[in-house]
């Protein structure tokens, strides 16, 4: 009997048969995501659907006993291969752990399980006059999984981008630990930090390599008396960057994002019924917008008391104009980029994704998970130039970028996305070529511009660059997961 056979039999003593599968057809559906090249996929060994933290614990204990690796999957909407097996792991599908355990209006937080979706949380928070941090990722994704990766979102700048407070984690060894104030049992889930070292941070950006998170408390925020989307337009990127830096550091906006003209055209797919990308996106010179169209827009979320929001808006517009940009009133943006307006209003202001949102744009082209990096403001300016260079050498139209400040504008998140228009069968080589170009790219960007890859991209040599820090992380990994059963496919350790 193989280890997997032994594990399967062991699991049947804890789990009912309907929640453990080794059926090839079922396993096949878990093997691919948006990043999978055609014809390339590894089947998981098993798929398990736990309902409780105790079930997760017994699963990990058994997996450890037979040394079978495990991939935790909250909602499985990751598009970069993080929720699919790479080495025949057991996929732990957490979708049935989908309760919102608590919404605490007094302290403004919610406690959620991994199977809860952004939609669910938005709706529940909204009913209590609160708003949660909403990433641009699909509304059917999981806040637990998403927040642990420092997402961009509608509240990224003002309230700092880390919406995570306390966690309940099952370690590979089967210990169930709670961090922050939750570790005490009677202190609720309000606080990230107690008087001890903060291990919530350890699990952030660990991509399931250190344990399975089974509960998380997340920050919620008051809805403003007034909530407004303010659009300003710019004819080049540098002034837009300066604008974003200023309005965030001077507490004039909850968050702000820059979208270049190609991305604004791309948003049309969210409201149109077209099967094709808008023609305008396909032009050879991707740097120059069509006549009359701004190079890009900055969308700022303003919220609070009406007097304050009015003042913030006025000041933002003044700053934009001082930098050479201008106000873009609703009628103007609605006429030029109706999709952008509809999407950003829903996303930034209402705090809920437009139905069905970004995922519907995938029908027209494949979104290749690409450059996602962060750098300080001056580094970002250089990255824009770097991006055009890279695109000229390696990519074909269309491609697009967006930038937003995190953490009081100390760092800016820079996302460069290449869209693949043809069939994947035709474009397989192009896709693989880009992926291999990215492999060396991150090292170059770090060396030249101080840019860090925003999310780990399965390149172990990158961790090595952090020197003793990486060494300590390895020691912790060995301590917590000596058999290396947790998501080895990430290639982090």
């Amino acid at each position, binding site marked *: 009997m193989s280890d997997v056979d032994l594990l399967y039999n062991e699991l049947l003593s804890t789990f009912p048969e*309907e*929640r453990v*599968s080794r*059926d*090839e*057809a*079922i396993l*096949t*559906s*878990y*093997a*691919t*995501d*948006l990043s999978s090249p*055609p*014809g390339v*996929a590894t089947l998981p060994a098993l*798929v398990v*659907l736990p309902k409780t933290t105790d079930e997760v614990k017994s699963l990990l204990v058994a997996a450890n006993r037979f040394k079978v690796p495990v991939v935790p999957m909250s*909602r*499985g*909407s*990751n*598009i970069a291969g993080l*929720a699919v097996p790479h080495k025949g792991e057991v996929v732990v*599908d957490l*979708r*049935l752990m989908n309760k919102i355990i608590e919404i605490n209006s007094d302290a403004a937080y919610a406690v959620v399980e991994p199977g809860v*979706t952004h*939609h*669910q949380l938005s*709706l529940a928070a909204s009913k209590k006059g609160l708003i949660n941090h909403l990433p641009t990722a*699909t*509304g*059917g*994704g999981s806040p637990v999984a998403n927040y642990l990766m420092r997402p961009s979102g509608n509240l990224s700048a003002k309230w700092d981008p880390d919406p995570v407070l306390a966690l309940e984690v099952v370690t590979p060894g089967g210990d169930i630990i709670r961090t922050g104030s939750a570790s005490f049992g009677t202190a609720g889930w309000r606080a990230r930090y107690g008087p001890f070292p903060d291990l919530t941070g350890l699990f952030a950006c660990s991509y399931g390599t250190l344990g399975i998170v089974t509960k998380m408390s997340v920050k919620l925020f008051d809805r403003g008396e007034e909530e407004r989307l303010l659009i300003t337009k710019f004819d080049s990127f540098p002034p837009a960057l300066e604008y974003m830096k200023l309005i965030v550091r001077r507490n004039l906006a909850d968050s702000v994002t820059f979208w270049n003209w190609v991305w604004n055209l791309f948003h049309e797919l969210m409201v149109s*019924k*077209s*099967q094709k990308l808008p023609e305008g996106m396909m032009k050879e010179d991707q740097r120059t917008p069509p006549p009359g169209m701004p190079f890009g827009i900055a969308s700022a979320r303003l919220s609070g008391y009406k007097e304050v929001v009015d003042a913030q808006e006025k000041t933002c517009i003044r700053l934009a104009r001082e930098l050479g940009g201008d106000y873009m009133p609703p009628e103007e943006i609605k006429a030029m980029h109706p999709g952008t307006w509809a999407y950003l209003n829903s996303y930034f202001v209402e705090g809920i994704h437009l*139905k*069905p949102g970004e*995922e*519907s744009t*995938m*029908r027209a*082209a*494949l979104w290749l998970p690409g450059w996602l990096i962060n750098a300080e403001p001056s580094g970002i300016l250089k990255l824009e130039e770097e991006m055009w260079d890279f695109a000229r050498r390696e990519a074909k139209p269309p491609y697009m970028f967006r930038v937003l400040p995190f953490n009081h504008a100390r760092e800016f998140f820079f996302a460069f996305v290449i869209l693949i228009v043809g*069939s*994947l*069968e035709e474009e397989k080589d192009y896709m693989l070529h880009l992926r291999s170009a990215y492999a060396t790219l991150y090292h170059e960007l770090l060396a030249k511009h101080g840019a860090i890859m925003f999310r780990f991209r399965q390149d172990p040599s990158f961790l090595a660059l952090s020197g003793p820090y990486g060494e300590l992380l390895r020691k912790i990994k060995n301590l917590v997961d000596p058999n290396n059963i947790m998501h080895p496919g990430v290639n982090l350790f």
Partner: protein
Amino acid sequence: MSNGIKLDERLYNFTTRCVRCAGCTFGYKNAEFELFCPIYNKFNFFTYSLGGIAQLARALHEGRIDLTESVTDILYHCTSCGACAEVCAEVDFPDLMELQHELRARCVEGGQVPFAHMVIIEGLKKDDNMLQKPKAERGKWAEGLEVKDITKEKAEVYYHAGCRYCFDEELWPVARTAVNLLRRAGIDLGIAGKDETCCGGRAFELGYQGEFIKYAENNMEMLKTAGIKTLVTSCADGYYAFKVLYDIFGKRGDLEVFHITEYLARLIKEGRLKPTKSVAMTATYHDPCHLGRKVEPWIRQEGELKAGEIYQPPRDLLNSIPGLKFIEMRRIKENAWCCGAGGGVIDAYSDFALWTAGERIEEAKSIGAEAIVTACPWCKRNFNDAVKESNGGLKIYDIVELVEQAL
């Protein structure tokens, strides 16, 4: 030797571009993110969703998995209710049910279909109906009604009863009532009696597209010979077949197709039927998939694709009945929860069909309804069976029964 299947480029592209957001499993507009995919809700694995089936289809196309019994078992558990297609991408194409239709056609071509369906299609070929009953008995439901026979006399409007109404004796009163209501309103009606044949819609849904074409051609030939330009049916599946499928395959010509609910709603509006008697009950309405979202993107009028779904007319009918308190469930209209009968599930996986119906009955009960009103015999049959299984608790009506009570 790989026993995979090949999809056309559009469908393959779709499968590679699925983001795995699982939006295909929960509603937006009318359902507050409540789960509306029966297979996902019951079996829980991601595989049992449009996204999961897309990944599976991708693997079949890429030759990573063969078309095994296990694969077809998953595919045929889906009622192809279209709730997922409604939400994903929200565009005219893909009507993502096309993915299911193509996959099933491939299953049929590969000879890999659940046994229950093989037997049913044999029955169809022998007796022209989906219920494995003798063809000679098809006209019995109308005995004593003395309706015109369109194979012998001219009539303005043809009433197509459908296999379920013709052979399910418990449901005969509904078809008879429909006929009587139409005649009462002065409609010059005819039926085909024992010469009526299946519309072919279910055969199409099972993947037997060749069989479907045969029935489409036969039906249109019969209607042409009889000089019929207007068809009315009480069966939602039949409505979908005649209105949408026949049109997609270029068989419908200029035949006007109506469902009984929209026809009656019009008659009431024109004052040809006047509901005056009170029918005191608290009732909710179940939107049949084939009347609503499955009809949505495909009606071809003047060269344009237009929506032809029927959500409002049945509601208008219920609102016109005095004394009836009409309340809505949560998963309604384009986000309605399927009754569980469609796509052959009632035949191949009857337990699952009953479970699905049971969920709907619970939803109705949870809002305080005494009765579910529907407009399709397959829904009614499945609800009836589910209520029997759970020992009562809710009444099941077809909408025409209540209209008749009110006249």
